[in-house]
């Protein structure tokens, strides 16, 4: 279904091919041909994926007919009600689970090969730090597992901790940190190997609004700097809007993609550089419009005009 370019295409470029009907109505007409870009494989390519869990109380169809392509360097958020299969989808990409039908490829390889090749970094909804390791040792874990020399490791960890603002806490243990700090350690750990693909499952769930906004800005910056593609699961519409190139809206039971909303955020944003995502954006008109667009996609229909003012 999606036919995202091989490289980071501008939002405008991708808009027609990918958008849902609702979204399309917002889009300006663009030349279809300009979308194709002949470069390396997309970061993630999901084709015809179903996932059925066989539980004690019966089968659960967690995902149905999922098709999704994420370009290298692209930032895609998954949003949808609880239980719609966001985490499941991400776990399929990470090869922590296997699709019941369909295929998942990551950078053109099987998901398993990508995992073995360490092509992605992952951060779970819970921080998932090892309680017996210090902050620094937690961040170093993936490097240790992959046999990175200890001096290199030390430098890298110091750099990462600096980035997430936890240098002073390097020798603390996870239980001595606040939830938000733990999340930041988990993010530093996910970034440790500078992956080309970042998988993040509600990583900011435990943060207060301000820290969250700071982390969002940091994430945008880091992803921009490293050129990593990001698959980002969230419950927060403003967060999805603020961060993403595209927002994938899912519907529950069975989990399907209801719509894919491409973000159109003013002159800066439309240029495709992530630098455009600064704090001021949150108070721009376009931001609220995109929030509303995603909200409507999520609710399944335009919010009725009877209530309140249509802002579109």
């Amino acid at each position, binding site marked *: 279904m999606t036919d995202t370019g091989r490289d980071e295409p501008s939002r405008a470029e991708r808009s027609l091919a990918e958008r849902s009907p609702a979204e399309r109505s917002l889009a300006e007409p663009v030349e279809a041909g300009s979308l194709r870009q002949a470069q390396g494989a997309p970061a993630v390519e999901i084709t015809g994926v179903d996932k059925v869990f066989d539980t004690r109380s019966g089968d659960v169809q967690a995902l149905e007919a999922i098709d999704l392509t994420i370009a290298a360097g692209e930032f895609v958020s998954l949003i949808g009600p609880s239980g719609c299969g966001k985490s499941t989808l991400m776990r399929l990409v990470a090869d922590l689970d296997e699709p019941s039908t369909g295929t998942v490829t990551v950078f053109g390889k099987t998901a398993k090969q990508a995992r073995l090749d360490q092509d992605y970094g992952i951060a779970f909804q819970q921080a998932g730090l090892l309680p017996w390791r210090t902050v620094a040792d937690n961040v170093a874990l993936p490097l240790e597992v992959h046999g990175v020399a200890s001096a290199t490791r030390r430098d890298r960890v110091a750099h990462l901790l600096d980035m997430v603002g936890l240098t002073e806490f390097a020798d603390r243990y996870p239980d001595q940190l606040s939830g938000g700090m733990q999340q930041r350690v988990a993010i530093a750990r996910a970034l440790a190997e500078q992956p080309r693909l970042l998988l993040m499952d509600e990583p900011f769930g435990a943060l207060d609004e301000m820290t969250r906004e700071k982390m969002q800005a940091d994430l945008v910056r880091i992803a921009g700097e490293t050129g990593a593609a990001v698959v980002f699961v969230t419950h927060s519409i403003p967060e999805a809007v603020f961060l993403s190139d595209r927002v994938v809206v899912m519907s529950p*039971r069975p989990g399907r993609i209801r719509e894919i909303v491409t973000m159109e955020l003013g002159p800066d944003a439309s240029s495709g550089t992530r630098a455009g995502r600064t704090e001021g954006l949150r108070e721009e008109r376009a931001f609220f419009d995109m929030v509303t667009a995603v909200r409507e996609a999520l609710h399944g229909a335009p919010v009725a005009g009877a209530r309140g003012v249509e802002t579109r």
Partner: protein
Amino acid sequence: MSGSRSLSPKLPEPVEGLPEPVEGAKAHRRGSLRRAQRASAVGWGIGGILALVALWEAYKLLAPADGVVIGGLRVLPRTTDLAMPHVWEMLGRLAEPVTRSPNALPLWLVILLAALTTLGIAAAGWLVGLVVGVGLALVMQRWRLAEWGLLPWIILSQTVPLIAFAPVVKSWGSRIEIGALEWQDWMSVALIASYLAFFPIAVGALKGLQSPDRIHTELMQTYAAGYWATLWKLRAPAAVPYLLPALRLGAANAVIGAVVAEVSTGLQGGIGRILIQFAGQASGDPAKAWGPIFGAILLGLVAAGSVALLGVLLKNYRRNEETA
């Protein structure tokens, strides 16, 4: 792509963990699946025992009579009939009469009767241990100073060999006479059994009573609930998951304590008594001595198992325990 499922004005309920309706056939299949799983667990368990039996016999067959001695230290046992009777001899002996006396009962029946006697004594000891243990736990939960003062001694109490004070208990008990209740020797045994039983119960109950989250104790505080209401509505139910394993351990300990105390005080009629009596006959009749040993094990398993049954009754109080 969108709207395969129309969104009602009401929100979709995230009801994970709820048993979802399944068709009868499937439910049936799963039910029998679980039953099959349980059966296979039992099967494996029996397999484990059979493996032990096979190991016993194979070792007896293959190893030298004097065992395996390395550097003067015997690291593997002797295989003589005195040390390791054949399994079938141990089992076969159970069916034979206990002695050649004309009116002798079969060995298994003697063991069963003795085990029942001991079970009763152990149950009494367990109850005393329950009362004392829970009482101590309540006191320690209520006053931190009491916890600090008592808990170290409660832990230390278990390093006192209980046979050291068996005579004291029996002697002091024999002087007690409260109204119609005259102190019986079995009560001394029960009391000693309770000494082993109270320990895990006190520790477990204390942990359990202290287990409610702050959010729950504060909730009770916002209700202006007093000590007893908090105890009854919050602490006691919260203690159940901690108390149950403690009670199970307590039951096993009560049985062990009762058996040892029977030996120690010379109480007649229980399994401890026939344990030493038949051990005394083991030179001439090695298989016979194993009967009461199996009896004692069975007794402990039954005691612990009955308490586990109690856990089934209280299953609603252990909802957040893992099923493992």
